[in-house]
């Protein structure tokens, strides 16, 4: 059978052209539908296994948040404000409520301040649990994914008990205080959930196995001056050795009366960011316990009744609020000219800078296999980037 083939058809090694280096250079779209977060794409230029350049492609969730707030009164804006970043709704409620409170200059009752910090810290805790679940899903470690989202559900039961909604508190932290009082018996329910979260964090430490640390150690390292130049904030900056936390440097609500410490690490790689977030969960639990012991009695909202939209007036002025969210520093600039609706609201979420400058900087020169580790170690949420 082989004899009939003449020499021409025999393919010899020399006939196959060698793959020249520029052929291995191609585009790759790190697709919009991720398993771990909202929709966000990165255009990668890849040479063989290495990413040569990355360019973020945002805009899937852009709904023009800042202008929507110009059409609504502060109470309606409070309901709107927890949809800025869906994973930490109450923290964004706090940012918006503080901006309006500083403009109106109203004196918040002390009990409302304590409840606000309690809910913000619970929201930070569940946001860190989402991060842990999304990162382990990205690394293929499904046990951590199922466990983290399972334990997060207990915190959602607390939200449901206190605010009436599982995921969206619907403006629970509203301008003037909070919308509802803590139902009685919620203190020990919260304590039980904290014990369950501690039990989960103990498992998290047991799970700190080779796969997890091997894939994140030395990956996506960010130097300190790059971090500050690119605008990284929060855990990403604390992982590069800068000891800064908005709750300590620019204290708001009652954070100056609570004692908690800020975890800081030097390495600046994905593993350092993971360790920082685990330590931050312990700090949040410590804060919640302190707040639970010291909640005073009293009413919960300065103007107890909701004033109808036609008679709401925000005094003239401008204010800039900075809060420490789970992801970093979330800020809001609010300008009012004395009408019921704010004249201009500028919201800047931490992920606006984490997902475009920092992510593009980190992905450049990394391996394809490390993309998920870098991507989810920044704990990104495209909703507060696109706004």
């Amino acid at each position, binding site marked *: 059978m082989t004899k009939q083939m003449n020499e021409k058809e025999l393919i010899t090694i020399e006939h196959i052209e060698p793959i020249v280096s520029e052929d291995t250079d191609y585009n790759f779209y790190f697709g919009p539908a991720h398993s771990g977060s909202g929709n966000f794409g990165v255009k990668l230029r890849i040479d063989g296994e290495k990413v040569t350049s990355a360019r973020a492609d945002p805009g899937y969730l852009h709904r023009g948040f800042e202008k929507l707030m110009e059409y*609504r009164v502060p*109470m*309606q804006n409070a*309901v*709107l404000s927890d949809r800025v970043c869906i994973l930490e709704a109450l923290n964004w409620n706090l940012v918006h409520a503080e901006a309006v409170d500083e403009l109106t200059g109203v004196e918040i009752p002390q009990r409302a301040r304590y409840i606000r910090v309690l809910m913000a810290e619970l929201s930070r805790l569940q946001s860190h649990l989402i991060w842990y679940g999304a990162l382990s899903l990205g690394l293929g470690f499904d046990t951590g994914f199922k466990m983290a989202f*399972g334990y997060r*559900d207990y915190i959602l*039961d607390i939200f*449901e*008990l206190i605010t*009436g*909604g599982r995921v*969206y508190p*619907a*403006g629970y932290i509203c301008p003037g205080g909070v*919308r*509802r009082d803590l*139902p009685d018996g919620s203190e020990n329910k919260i304590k039980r959930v904290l014990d369950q979260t501690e039990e989960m964090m103990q*498992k998290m430490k*047991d799970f*700190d*196995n*080779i796969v997890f640390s091997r894939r994140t150690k030395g990956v996506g390292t960010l130097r300190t001056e790059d971090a500050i130049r690119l605008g990284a904030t929060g855990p990403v900056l604390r992982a590069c050795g800068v000891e800064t936390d908005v709750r300590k440097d620019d204290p708001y609500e009652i954070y100056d009366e609570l004692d908690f410490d800020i975890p800081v690490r030097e390495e600046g790689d994905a593993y350092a960011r993971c360790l920082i977030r685990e330590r931050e969960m312990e700090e949040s639990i410590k804060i919640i316990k302190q707040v639970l012991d010291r909640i005073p009695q009293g009413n919960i909202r300065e103007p107890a*009744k*909701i004033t*109808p*939209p*036609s008679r709401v007036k925000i005094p003239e002025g401008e204010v800039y609020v900075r809060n420490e969210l789970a992801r970093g520093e979330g800020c809001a600039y609010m300008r009012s000219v004395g009408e019921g609706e704010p004249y201009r609201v500028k919201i800047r979420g931490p992920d606006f800078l984490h997902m475009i400058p920092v992510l593009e900087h980190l992905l450049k020169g990394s391996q394809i296999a490390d993309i998920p580790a870098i991507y989810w170690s920044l704990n990104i949420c495209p909703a507060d980037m696109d706004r």
Partner: protein
Amino acid sequence: MSMLKTIEVLFETLFSKPMTVKFPYEAIEIPEDYRGEHELDIDKCVGCGLCAEICPNRAVEMVELPEEHKEKYPKTYPRLDLGKCCFCGLCQDICPRKCLKLTKNVFLATPDPSAVIKNPMPKGPQ
């Protein structure tokens, strides 16, 4: 992680109760003031329209009742469009007479969107 640790965690989770809530047979208890489907007590309602004014999604609209109830309920009453509603409960908090209440019912799935409009109906025998 040493092998002993793995076996210990294995047995620990093997014999502990799974955290799954088997939905159709068992369900977690929804707390008292959960923000679910609305319920309007039409006798107490005075038709002031505050709920229609505060609603961020414009889901509440003040409409008259059909002919046969007009003489008993002359004013305009809120019609709730659950397709637009974000279940924030602002209408429940602002109502001066406390006649609009959000219940615990969440099973509202419908094939056609017009079935979720809740027209104000008197709670009569019919």
